[in-house]
């Protein structure tokens, strides 16, 4: 039986800013419905990797695919249309727009049928009732955790195949971190593939189906959380 086509894959990707590469030789296959987490020390290239997948940073070498679709030369807006949704770590909502406007603007330029958009909006509002209650509120008035939920909701408006999350728990209290990861699990339970980069190693290991350790821009290890905790010293891995 042939294995399913990876929903998101990279082959030998290298990228960076300026002269040097921040990440190199990144080859990943993310299976449909998986929670794939990336951990690593500060400066390991995690943010660069997720921005490359989102289309915000150009790939210098290698290829990126969403299923059978080649993403490598597609712009960030084009990738959203194909099914890649990205939630940045910070500045992830438009603070001067209302919550309702933030949701609207997330689909208006995707070329989708209005009926499909309305149906997806209803699904998203049902998934995020805390967002649905405050549609006329300016997003800039939300707390950190509420903004994160709104950012997730906006990403889900595009009905993505893959959700890219950039350190979703950054700057949040332990209680809110729990709520955020509960929401991620709920989204994944509906079949959504989730790709997360995370500084919170404990949550990354708890939620991930597979974990990739990125150090100095290269893959140091890729394994299940069980294998990592049983066989490897993360401290040594991080310090290289």
């Amino acid at each position: 039986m042939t294995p399913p086509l990876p929903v998101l894959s990279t082959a030998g990707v290298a990228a960076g800013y300026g002269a040097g590469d921040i990440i190199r030789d990144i080859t990943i296959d993310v299976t449909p419905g998986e929670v794939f987490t990336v951990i690593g020390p500060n400066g390991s290239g995690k943010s660069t990797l997720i921005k490359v997948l989102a289309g915000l940073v150009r790939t210098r070498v290698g290829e990126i695919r969403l299923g059978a679709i080649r993403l490598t030369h597609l712009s960030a807006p084009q990738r959203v249309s194909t099914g890649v949704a990205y939630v940045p770590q910070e500045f992830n909502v438009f603070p001067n727009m209302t919550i309702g406007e933030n949701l609207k603007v997330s689909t208006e330029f995707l070329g989708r049928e209005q009926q499909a958009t309305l149906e997806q909006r209803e699904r998203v509002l049902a998934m995020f009732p805390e967002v649905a209650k405050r549609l006329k509120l300016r997003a800039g008035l939300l707390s950190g955790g509420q903004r994160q939920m709104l950012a997730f909701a906006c990403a889900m408006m595009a009905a993505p195949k893959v959700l890219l999350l950039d350190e979703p728990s950054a700057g949040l209290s332990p209680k809110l971190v729990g709520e955020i990861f509960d929401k991620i699990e709920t989204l994944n339970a509906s079949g959504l593939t989730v790709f997360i980069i995370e500084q919170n190693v404990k949550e990354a290991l708890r939620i991930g189906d597979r974990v990739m350790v990125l150090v100095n821009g290269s893959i140091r290890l890729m394994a299940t959380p069980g294998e990592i905790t049983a066989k490897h010293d993360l401290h040594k891995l991080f310090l290289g």
Partner: protein
Amino acid sequence: MIAQVVLNGFVTGMIIALPAIALTLTYGILKFPNFAIGAMLTVGAYFAYIANAWLHLPLVWAAVLAAVALAITSVGVDRLVFQPLRERTAITLLVASMGVSFVLENVARFVLGNSARSFEVAIARPQRYFELRVNMEQIYTAATALSAMLAIYIILRHTALGRAMRAVSDNPALAAVRGIDRERIARWMWVIAGVLTAIAGVLAGLDRAIDPLLGWNYVVTVFAAAILGGLGNPFGAVLGALTLGVVEETSTLLIPPNYRQVVSFCAIAFLLLARPQGLLGSVRVKR
């Protein structure tokens, strides 16, 4: 007397408001101050003059043609000059816009010469309302400018394009990952800027003679209005323009008219010391 001066200032402010909105939209979306705004105003006035005086169209239709022509010109200039420099610094783009300004002005001079021209419109007697003298040109200016501002308000607040423009202005990277193509929004921004500036050119051409330096009479005040209102905020640009218009006109009660712009800049200097983000701008936090 004061009421007359305030009224005159208000109407002058409305002429300034339209290119100030255009300037602030450009700054908000493309993050550079477009120095060519004055030359664009001049070219808009000339397009309307050609349609009105050469093709004998009524001024309203001449203004419509001028708006379309300047919108196309603006998109073309962006494609040729600004788009290749999109990722450069704001200073580079500002200098490029200075070059565009000189080219546009001198193309107008080459085609139409240096002579002062005026629209072919019927001369109408001023009206009197409550001791105030109101010219027909002032009534047309107010009605046209208010209609244009209302249209901009509706576009920005109640349309998908307006939401996308606000999104790109706020955070271009986030807008991109929400499916909004900045280049597509930039093209529409130039269309709107071209229409607004052409209308301002027609209104300016009603107020004074049309010559290659028409825009220079307004460029500094337009910049001042946009800065006063808070760069990137179209509603602030309107407030800044109306404020400057009234301040400039009322200053003529005390000082010779030649010095009125000095008064405006003193008012701006004082305001920016007290509130550097402008009247309606938001404080930018550096992280």
